[in-house]
């Protein structure tokens, strides 16, 4: 199970890459595998202000629906059009081409390290 060490995580199975004041957000491979093949993504609109912990979207697979939570607070600056068109990218490349949206951060939420996330999913 891939858990890149350079990323930060949430207990809701999202990853965050902080680059300056921008945070890029996706879901972990563990979450993507648990959902199964993702067939539809509902991403937050660009310009929307989001608060960490709030539900901001959905990922639907053939079998189930998962909610997307904002891992950080701030303003959405980009939603990944490629994954809206090809949601399977989240399954095939969750930490790369399968990123979901990016946020101009006003405050970081409760993020955890890769080690802490690995321990969480091992429970």
């Amino acid at each position, binding site marked *: 199970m891939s858990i890149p060490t350079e990323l930060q995580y949430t207990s809701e199975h999202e990853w965050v890459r902080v680059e300056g004041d921008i945070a890029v957000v996706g879901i972990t491979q563990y979450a993507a595998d648990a959902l199964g093949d993702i067939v539809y993504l509902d991403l937050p609109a660009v310009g929307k202000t989001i608060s960490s912990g709030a539900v901001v979207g959905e990922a639907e697979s*053939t079998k189930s629906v998962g909610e997307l939570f904002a891992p950080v607070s701030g303003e959405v600056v980009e939603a990944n059009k490629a994954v809206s068109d090809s949601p399977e990218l989240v399954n095939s490349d969750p930490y790369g081409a399968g990123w979901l949206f990016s946020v101009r951060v006003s405050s970081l939420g409760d993020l955890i390290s890769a080690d802490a996330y690995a321990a969480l999913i091992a429970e």
Partner: protein
Amino acid sequence: MSDALILSPLDAIHRELGASFTDFAGWDMPVRYSSDLAEHHAVRTAAGIFDLSHMAEIYLVGPGSGAALDYALSGTLSTIPLGRAKYSLLLNDEGCILDDVVVYRTGDEEFMVVANAGNRFVAADAIRERARGFECVVRDDSDSVALIAVQGPNSATILAGVAGLEVEGLSELGYYRCLPARFGSTPMIIGRTGYTGEDGFELYIASSDAAELWRAVTVAGEGHGLEPCGLACRDTLRLEAGMPLYGHELNSILKPEQVNAARAVDLTKDNFVGREGVQAGVSAGAAVLVGLRSEGKRAGRADYAVHSNGRTIGTITSGALSPTLGYPIAFALVEPDFAELGTVVDIDVRGTAIPATVISLPFYSRKAQQ
């Protein structure tokens, strides 16, 4: 009662293959090996192999077996010839559905009833109780019989190449027919049956020999696109094929006529459990099962409400974005006024009204595609 999940006789193979597992009716069964969609498409275009060992196998043996089944189940089973299979319902006294089963005539005086895993004890107890006074023995062999399904257009070719499988007339075997066979020295039953909407076979064999048979089928499937398939794709396959799933489209407060299953009830029989209830009919306004199609990618899911002009008129029982058709499909139980083909309703998809049209079942038919 123990919380420990029951392991399939094929469990070691599934773990070798890296399957993800799910608790299905108390069994730890493969939900997928790689991708639900890839497995779904493999069955539609090539072939898939499924472990269905959780299904229940209940035998009736003796000269009164057929008469006992005629009394216990909704259809007439006593007159089906040797080597035939028939879909039937187990009803309660009120005429509502306790389980849906497939009955195979495996001998002149022997039948095998295949029931849903979750209803194993309900079905076995009811059949045993109802068979009292008939000259037959009821035997629940679910623990010692494994079931491997091979489904998809290449399944006949694959089975013809299985080393150690001895069977006469497999290629000519018709749909809903069954044959005795041998795998090495082990007797088994092959039915041309399934729950995917494709051509395919179901292989009933002693649990102790199931792993060896799975491996032999896998070897025969090389070069024919055979993929191991989990229960996730089995669900989307059966949904596309318009086949009901007990606990979703069927339950113990629904009568056959509400769920397009009146054809499985033979009212010309003298007496059977549920007859009076079926004959009493349903109350005005009782829900009926329909198929819904919508646009876009967002599917209705089990228990979502169905609305018309803002009023709740039904409930989704199963739904998915159809992998084969590319649009969302669903079964729903709706008020009878909304059951006519072409009726447009709204599915409440987590707060968003998604329009859907009542269409004829099945959603997918392999004959229509050819």
